[in-house]
């Protein structure tokens, strides 16, 4: 059955349509072409023609024209629109014309770079020219590295390797730096928050070295659709960037189905679970032979869904290879095999976290199921974009969970369909990040009196500070690195702390211990605490021992019939107040720096299928600390005095729940980037206080933004709770009654009224 037939069948099925809130259909899009721009090397066009490319899409021609005119550009187009051509053409042309020319390609992950290089290889091979394209990353063998440094025309790497493997050793890359013409950065929308702030500083270092070697590279950037691609590109590079977004690629018709599971308990506002509903929809697609990708928000959900789906397709011999799971933590070889299986069509359904959201080549699939809202509009479109070919119809199902934000989306489908995706925020001048990279820069090349560091503020103060600390030495007009350390090794670009990953070791077979995956330090306490049930490719394991010092978790296969879910405890302490003020109604609000300590103390055991709670266990693990920015509201005494402590607590929980819904929407960020915490008697203010902070070390400016628009945030929260028709609170407003009690919604409304001064 094809998608068009399935669409007809579903639309005539009243049982299914009962739960469909909105069925949106985008008609197919025609291709828009433009002629090859003047100025490309003459050898390129015949090769493209042989590959069936006779004209370029409008955006490709536009991009090439601007690059040839010397502009830095950012190309913003959806998945599968042929954006690689936008950078491969000018780069290949430059190298064909001048064999000394060099280009640097940056991809956020190793997997992506492997994919893109194979495409480039094909073009080069077809031309029969000697253009050397090499991948330089942690997997590059030592013997090959020298060749890459000397002879690679196009060096493909990732920001981490550029940061720690290339820039500090720039003297070994003289040829590259002296002749660098183009810096290509793909998927720039992934560089937000800490990762983006780090990359912006890595680029400051890169450009500084290019200046030393006398090259003036141009940037070619690519982004998926976000609200501020131009701003993001300019913040990353510190330069004005021209935007190319006149997409000319064709697209088949697409159905977007908003599905809200039926309510099973009206009083409590409880709906059928998102996991069983997703399972049913995916199973239906699977049975109809429609190749499907299902996205789930957590690794755990991926494993649970994979297990369910594998059970459905298992053959008499127990094989269920047609259904696969995919997420971070699987080993690279396993991931490559799954990607290949998808492209070749051996795999009919894959269940993935956002790991497959990036441009990894898995071909275009027919259908996509979103198990819950992925958190941002940009992500939702990236994931939905996995289904959809240039010709032929595709279908996307959004299955809402009972989470407030999901319910908001499903009841306002236009938010997703019409509103522009989020801003990608980053803060290259985050002092932690800036200082770390400034040290790396000083190591790489002495600063001279009057030197700046890109457009970073305060270079003279930073130098003076490092001089006094004995890290650099100011003599004869220059600041020389004057320490034994290798500063690049102290920074990890993807998290604030340079921590190593934990290895996950399967000890089921005592003869043969086997590493089956790895996990970052911040996730370990949640998923790999002792006695946790860890799932990998739908096999259950129990964590036998977690060795925190050796960074290893030892697990053993089990068949437990339940899974575990851990509770996170958060405590806050104050480092510094930056601004504070009192409103006319006595509400105190402040902005400042906070230390956030996270501790996992216990976990719950939850039965498969019924999702009953089977009991709990304790976790004994060290705290993890984060230093970030936050803002907070303190209730006036006369408001707090109206309630007993339980009522107040439930009301504040309601306000916090509401702020969690509105904050990401107003701040245009991912829900996980901003945290809201309430304290009935806060150790910081000694009073009832609600905190909102950047859930990223050092902060990226979200709290600053929230402080400036705090009135609007509170008013939006008040409006949601006022507009909601539920009697005592539901997941779409102040929270379910089970959580906030009978009075929670009412109290939340009263507190917000007091806070807004209404």
């Amino acid at each position, binding site marked *: 059955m094809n998608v068009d037939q399935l669409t007809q069948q579903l639309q005539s099925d009243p049982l299914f349509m009962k739960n469909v809130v909105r069925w949106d259909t985008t008609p197919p899009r025609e291709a828009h072409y433009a002629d090859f721009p003047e100025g490309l090397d003459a050898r390129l066009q015949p090769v493209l023609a042989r590959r069936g490319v006779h004209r370029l899409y409008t955006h490709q021609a536009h991009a090439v024209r601007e690059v040839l005119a010397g502009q830095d550009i950012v190309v913003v187009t959806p998945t599968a629109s042929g954006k690689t051509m936008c950078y491969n053409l000018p780069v290949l042309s430059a190298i064909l014309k001048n064999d000394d020319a060099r280009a640097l390609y940056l991809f956020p992950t190793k997997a992506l770079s492997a994919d893109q290089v194979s495409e480039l290889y094909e073009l080069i091979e077809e031309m029969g020219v000697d253009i050397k394209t090499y991948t330089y990353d942690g997997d590059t063998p030592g013997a090959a590295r020298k060749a890459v440094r000397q002879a690679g025309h196009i060096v493909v790497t990732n920001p981490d390797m550029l940061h720690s493997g290339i820039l*500090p*050793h720039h003297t*070994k890359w003289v040829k590259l730096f002296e002749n660098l013409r183009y810096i290509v950065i793909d998927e720039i929308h992934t560089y937000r928050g800490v990762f983006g702030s780090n990359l912006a500083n890595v680029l400051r270092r890169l450009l500084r070295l290019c200046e030393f070697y006398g090259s003036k590279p141009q940037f070619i950037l690519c982004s998926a659709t976000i609200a501020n691609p131009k701003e993001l590109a300019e913040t990353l590079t510190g330069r004005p960037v021209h935007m190319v977004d006149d997409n000319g690629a064709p697209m088949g018709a697409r159905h977007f189905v908003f599905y809200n599971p039926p309510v099973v308990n009206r009083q409590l506002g409880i709906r059928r679970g998102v996991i069983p509903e997703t399972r049913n929809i995916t199973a239906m697609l699977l049975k109809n032979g429609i190749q499907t990708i299902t996205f789930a928000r957590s690794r755990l959900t991926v494993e649970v869904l994979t297990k369910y789906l594998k059970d459905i397709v298992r053959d008499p011999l127990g094989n269920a290879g047609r259904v696969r799971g995919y997420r971070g933590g699987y080993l690279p070889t396993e991931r490559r095999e799954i990607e290949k299986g998808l492209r070749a069509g051996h795999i009919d359904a894959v269940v993935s976290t956002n790991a497959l959201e990036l441009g990894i080549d898995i071909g275009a699939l027919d259908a996509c199921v979103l198990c819950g809202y992925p958190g941002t509009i940009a992500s939702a479109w990236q994931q939905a974009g996995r289904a959809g070919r240039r010709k032929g119809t595709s279908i996307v199902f959004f299955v809402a969970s009972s989470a407030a934000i999901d319910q908001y989306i499903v009841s306002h489908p236009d938010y997703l369909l019409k509103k522009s995706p989020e801003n990608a925020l980053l803060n290259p001048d985050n002092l932690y990040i800036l200082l770390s990279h400034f040290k790396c820069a000083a190591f790489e090349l002495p600063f001279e009196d009057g030197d700046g560091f890109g457009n970073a503020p305060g270079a003279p*103060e930073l130098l003076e500070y490092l001089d006094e600390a004995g890290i650099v030495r100011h003599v*004869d007009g*220059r600041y020389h690195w*004057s320490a*034994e350390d*290798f500063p690049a090794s102290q920074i990890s670009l993807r998290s604030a702390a340079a921590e190593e990953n934990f290895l996950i070791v399967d000890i089921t077979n005592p003869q043969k211990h086997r590493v089956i995956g790895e996990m970052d330090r911040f996730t370990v306490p949640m998923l790999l605490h002792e006695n946790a049930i860890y799932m990998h490719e739908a096999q259950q394991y129990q964590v036998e021992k977690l060795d925190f010092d050796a960074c290893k978790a030892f697990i053993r296969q089990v068949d437990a019939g339940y899974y575990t879910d851990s509770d996170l405890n958060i405590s806050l302490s104050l480092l510094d107040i930056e601004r504070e003020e009192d409103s006319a109604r006595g509400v105190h609000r402040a902005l400042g720096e906070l230390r956030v300590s996270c501790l996992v103390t216990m976990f719950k055991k939850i039965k498969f299928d019924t999702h009953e709670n089977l009991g709990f266990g304790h976790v004994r693990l060290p705290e993890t600390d984060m230093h970030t920015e936050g803002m907070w509201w303190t209730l006036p005494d006369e408001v707090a005095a109206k309630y007993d402590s339980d009522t107040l607590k439930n009301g504040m929980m309601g306000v916090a729940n509401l702020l969690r819904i509105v904050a990401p929407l107003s701040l245009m960020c991912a829900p996980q980037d901003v945290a809201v915490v309430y304290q009935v008697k806060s150790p910081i203010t000694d009073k009832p206080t609600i905190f909102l902070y950047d859930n990223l070390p050092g902060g990226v400016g979200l709290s600053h933004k929230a402080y400036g628009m705090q009135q609007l945030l509170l008013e939006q929260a008040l409006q949601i709770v006022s507009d909601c028709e539920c009697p005592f609170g539901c997941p779409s407003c102040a929270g379910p009654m089970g959580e906030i009690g009978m009075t929670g919604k009412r109290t939340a409304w009263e507190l917000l009224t007091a806070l807004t001064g209404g």
Partner: protein
Amino acid sequence: MNLRDKLNAISKPKITVTPVEAPPVKQYTDCWHGRAHYPMRDFPFALDVRRETVMLMQGEEMPDGFDPMRILYLDTETTGLGGGAGTVAFEVGLGWLEEDGFHVHQLLMRDYPEEKFLLEEIVRTADRFDVICTFNGKTFDLPLLRNRFIMNRIRTACLDKPHIDLLHIARRVWKLRLRRCNLTNLEEALLGVPRVDDLPGALVPERFFSYLKTGDFRLFDDVLEHNAQDIASLCTLLAHMCRMYEHPEQLRFDEDVYSMGVALDRFRHTEEARRCYRLAGGEMHAQGQERLAASYRRCGEKEEAAQVWLGMIARREGGVTPYVEMAKYYEHQRKDIPAALEMVRRAIALVSEPSLFDETSVQEARNALQYRYDRLRRKQGRSKE
């Protein structure tokens, strides 16, 4: 908070700033130079180092007019051991032989602006020599100096000469016995001279940073002494190693002779390698013989190889390998299937004895033998038809 307060707040541990008086503006005109001279009698065989011997020790080509007095011995002391663009060679020791003995010229920068004088002096000196000799210079000293030339915008090829890296040579010959092949270990084991009161290398960078803070030149005393000793050692060791390569029969340890054979083999000095394999006795005898036979076989000298394998079988050396090799020999050279079968049969008998070895590897060996046996039996059957 201003930027300064913030910097103090986020850095741990908090830095206590001791106000330093602004140093007087100095003119930097040269780096520090130190010179030393050692009498010729301390370097007994140093002038006998021959091109052919050096080329036995490593794969690199040496210049035609090779002359031991045109070897530049070089060793650096650095501000860090990790490498990278921010690591500086603050002291460089250069040494060479003249008719009257060994000369050491040490260059030291007392502050960063003196670095370019130090580097320029290296260029001037190196240009007078044909060959460079270091200890681990291939991976450490020379790349580091090349970095420094680039950082100071000095374009030079003065280090791009034939290079003798004693560490790599020493590792190939002495690693089996000494395990750790650092300069101190080698001096003690090869020359019989232990170092006394030597400065551990890891403490060297700190001396430089302390000097910058205090200006106390005495901090460099043992750095300079340590460096001068290293330079002189390079010359002594090279001469010593050459003599050993020329007279392997004088080596006292079987491990060393055997390793030297492997090293010679690596650069295809077949005859010299065989000589060492034949000399390897004691515990190394079996391995030496095995290598010897492999060398013959590789060169197509099948009969000689077979003689060695048979000798090993007679002495019960080398486990099943000689049997398997003899089986191959009978099968392919002599076309004597029954003799080949007999060899495999004896090998199977050998691995069927109870053994202390790892079960799985014995099992694998047994399977491979059984497979060979069955194959030979089939071949025998076919030829009878």
